[in-house]
């Protein structure tokens, strides 16, 4: 028991995390490039056009994965923020802070690609229906989290205050997901769910899943890179940082 415990907390030590992340980033980045290439090739060339929308539907290969990512990353950020708040684990705080910009990026992409698809399909770029509005609130939550973090000088107080904001915002995630079931919305219901068979051709949902995996790999690589810089900044006076920097000098 005690041995596994030491293993578990091994990477909560900044120095160990820094080294591990440095080794993992190239692997995740490479996987991400391969999966993006595969997904885009399948989505733009191999997958057939839709019977109603023709080729304009192909934006779902970006839109659906990034929209899923925006929700997953928010929940992940809130979990890390919560762990940091309750157990005072520094690495959890670093991870929460590092996830926020990537989450905001994916949320923005989901809104943007949705607007580009909405114009030809619905006839409008934007409507204030429950799905679109709650996703916009998610973007504001990400931006608010980052702003709050940046606004407070003291590192510990900044982490605590923004963690509370992140946890409060979690309420919004089920609202986004279930909005299309709970209320009449212009946005259609989910085509791919955990419980039912997808209501789209196999090649279409497989491509969406590949793009989703590609987004995950990208997110992991970018978040780890951001966490490494954050660690260096926090621990700049620690001896291990001096040693690493010394050894990385040409």
């Amino acid at each position, binding site marked *: 028991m005690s041995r596994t415990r030491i293993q578990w907390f091994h990477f909560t030590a900044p120095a160990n995390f820094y080294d591990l992340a440095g080794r993992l980033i190239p692997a995740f980045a490479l996987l991400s490039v391969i999966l993006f290439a595969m997904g885009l090739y399948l989505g733009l060339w191999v997958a057939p056009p*839709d*019977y109603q929308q023709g080729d304009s539907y192909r934006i779902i290969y970006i839109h659906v994965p990034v929209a899923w990512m925006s929700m997953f990353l928010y929940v992940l950020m809130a979990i890390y923020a919560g762990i940091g708040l*309750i157990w005072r684990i520094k690495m959890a705080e670093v991870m929460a802070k590092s996830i926020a910009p990537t989450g905001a990026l994916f949320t923005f992409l989901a809104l943007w690609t949705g607007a580009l698809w909405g114009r030809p399909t619905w006839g409008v770029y934007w409507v204030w229906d429950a799905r679109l509005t709650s996703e916009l609130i998610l973007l504001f939550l990400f931006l608010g989290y980052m702003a709050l973090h940046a606004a407070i000088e003291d590192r510990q107080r900044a982490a605590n205050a923004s963690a509370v904001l992140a*946890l409060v915002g979690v309420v919004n995630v089920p609202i986004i997901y279930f909005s299309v079931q*709970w209320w*009449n*919305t212009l946005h*259609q219901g989910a085509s791919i769910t955990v419980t039912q068979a997808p209501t*789209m051709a196999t090649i279409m949902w497989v491509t969406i899943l590949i793009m989703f995996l590609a987004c995950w790999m990208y997110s992991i690589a970018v978040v780890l890179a951001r966490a490494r810089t954050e660690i260096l900044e926090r621990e700049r006076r620690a001896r291990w940082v001096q040693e690493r920097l010394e050894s990385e000098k040409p």
Partner: protein
Amino acid sequence: MKTRQKRLMLVGFGLAALLAITALVLNAFSDNLVFFHTPSEIASNSVPLERTFRLGGLVEDNSVRRGEDGVTVHFKVTDTAKAVPVIYSGVLPNLFREGQGVVTVGQLQEDGVFRATQVMARHDEEYMPPEAAEAIKQAQRERARTVERPEGL
């Protein structure tokens, strides 16, 4: 109790309370969160008729008539129980057709006709290649034919 456990309890109770509050608020405002009203709701007078609102449903089959000026369109929006006649002049979205889901914005006139200022197409969650859609249509036609002409005729 350790401070760590206290914080855990605090966060846990805080989140639970927040979830309960949100659920209650959303439940209370449920009517206002609806993006569009259905023809049945209009028939039962549960929609404020004097102001602009959104009417949603399917474009009824064989109900689309184009006006002589080329831009005015008459059609009926149905939820399969009730139907409301709609008049609209302007550009229709590409997906607009009979049987398609639409959301229209406008006002209900005295004569019961909904004068729309905007028509949006509503897409469903089904995506398939044209060949598959054609195959489904073909199968439906086959079925319709066998129903119309029973065996032996």
